[in-house]
């Protein structure tokens, strides 16, 4: 890249990126005195940026980096990951359900304050809903066809839990590691932190919860339709979030990364559908029905003699 290109639009992009990261930061004019201890983005051109934000200049959110982070052995460290209100969680869930091409989930909804509440409880809900609705389909199938043997299938809860949690933690770990490794190629836009990646994945799994409930309807093409719709929404959210980070990378790396992400998501959806909602085996015919259906006149002739004695 030519150095002249870097300098020409560098400030503007940096300012918009920082503003997207820190929504209540202020950009001050270069002739204003910057208060001590504050870091501000200095713009040489145009005074309109600093005009209406003079009240906010004392609360520059760039101060966040100066706040002391408690050590990881203290309870307060983990409490900082649960620092969300009900309305914020609902807003993040809505943002994951309706992905839009320009809106980056991390920048617009998380705003650099990822939480662990959403990913953890969405995964727990999804695991239980999968096991319960899978069991319910067995119940409904038994009502239609009484020869099918019903059992609570409790081991599926364990399987569901392990699968969902491993997916929601290991795949973001791999993705985060890969993005950090490729960091050298992209100097300007930093990669997401590990928690932000976990957050994105966790919230993107939310759309599967109503989908799994709708899979109770025993119409196959409808089930595939709902599954495809959920997968499209979920994968679109992931792709729109990852696109600003990988777009500066080489085309090959970007394509490989995005297609791997979508493929893994599709594998999860299809694996869940096949394992928890499998078509039921029809060979469970109860033996007593066969024995009582034998008519009495076909009994072997030796029996009346033995009964007579």
């Amino acid at each position, binding site marked *: 890249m030519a150095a002249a290109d870097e300098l020409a639009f560098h400030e503007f992009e940096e300012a918009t990126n920082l503003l997207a990261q820190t929504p209540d930061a202020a950009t001050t004019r270069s002739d204003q005195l910057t208060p001590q201890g504050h870091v501000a983005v200095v713009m040489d051109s145009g005074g309109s940026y600093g005009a209406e934000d003079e009240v906010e200049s004392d609360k520059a959110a760039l101060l966040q980096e100066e706040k002391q982070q408690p050590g990881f052995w203290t309870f307060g460290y983990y409490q900082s990951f649960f620092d969300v209100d*009900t309305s914020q969680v609902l807003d993040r869930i809505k943002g994951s359900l309706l992905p839009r091409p320009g809106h980056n989930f991390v920048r617009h909804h998380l705003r650099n304050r990822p939480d662990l509440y959403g990913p953890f409880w969405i995964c727990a809900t999804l695991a239980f809903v999968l096991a319960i609705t899978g069991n319910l389909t067995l119940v409904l199938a038994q009502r239609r066809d009484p020869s099918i043997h019903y059992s*609570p299938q409790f081991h599926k809860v364990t399987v569901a839990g392990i699968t969902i949690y491993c997916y929601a933690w290991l795949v973001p770990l791999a993705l985060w590691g890969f993005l950090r490794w490729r960091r050298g190629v992209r100097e300007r836009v930093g990669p997401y932190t590990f928690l932000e990646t976990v957050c994105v994945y966790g919230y993107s799994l939310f759309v599967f919860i109503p989908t799994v409930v709708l899979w109770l309807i025993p119409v196959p093409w409808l089930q595939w339709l709902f599954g495809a719709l959920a997968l499209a929404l979920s994968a679109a959210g992931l792709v729109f979030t990852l696109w600003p980070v990988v777009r500066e990378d080489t085309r090959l790396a970007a394509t490989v990364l995005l297609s791997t992400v979508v493929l893994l998501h599709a594998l999860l959806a299809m694996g869940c559908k096949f394992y928890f909602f499998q078509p039921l085996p029809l060979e469970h015919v109860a033996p007593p029905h066969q024995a009582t259906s034998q008519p009495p006149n076909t009994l072997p002739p030796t029996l009346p003699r033995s009964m007579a004695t």
Partner: protein
Amino acid sequence: MAEAAESPGDPGTATPRPLMRDLKAVGKKFMHVLYPRKSNTLLRDWDLWGPLILCVTLALMLQRGSVDSEKDGGPQFAEVFVIVWFGAVTITLNSKLLGGNISFFQSLCVLGYCILPLTVAMLVCRLVLLAELGPINFMVRLFVVIVMFAWSIVASTAFLADSQPPNRKALAVYPVFLFYFVISWMILTFTPQ
């Protein structure tokens, strides 16, 4: 509680007072769960005997019998135990991380005691299952489980919701809902062998 002449230092009194006192305390908390009012007894004098008794009773009634060798049956004793205690600990950690001002054991105590309605539902379901199976049988069990599930939620929310800041109450109550829902599901799908 106004106990007469509480003198722990007196070696002459050899009455079994501590056991009776504990049993009375457990019984009193059972009453508080069955008729939830805004009182502090569960929180102030917490104990874990009641939850232990309830959990063991529930797990004994829910476990699949020893003659059942199929691998996709109901939960084992240990599985029920793990779900109840691990679930209660997770919910307690969650409410503390969200900034609630309830102590760890107080929260465990409340969650454990509020399993009482569901244990009663399990007893009723086992009795109902002695009659002939059919859709009416299922409807009765479903009704009983739903009523007891709602009772558990109301009882535990009455004690736990006040300890959270107002803008996070729903975040703290939802895991409780999920916890009792899973236990209700286990009770409803119990089939005798």
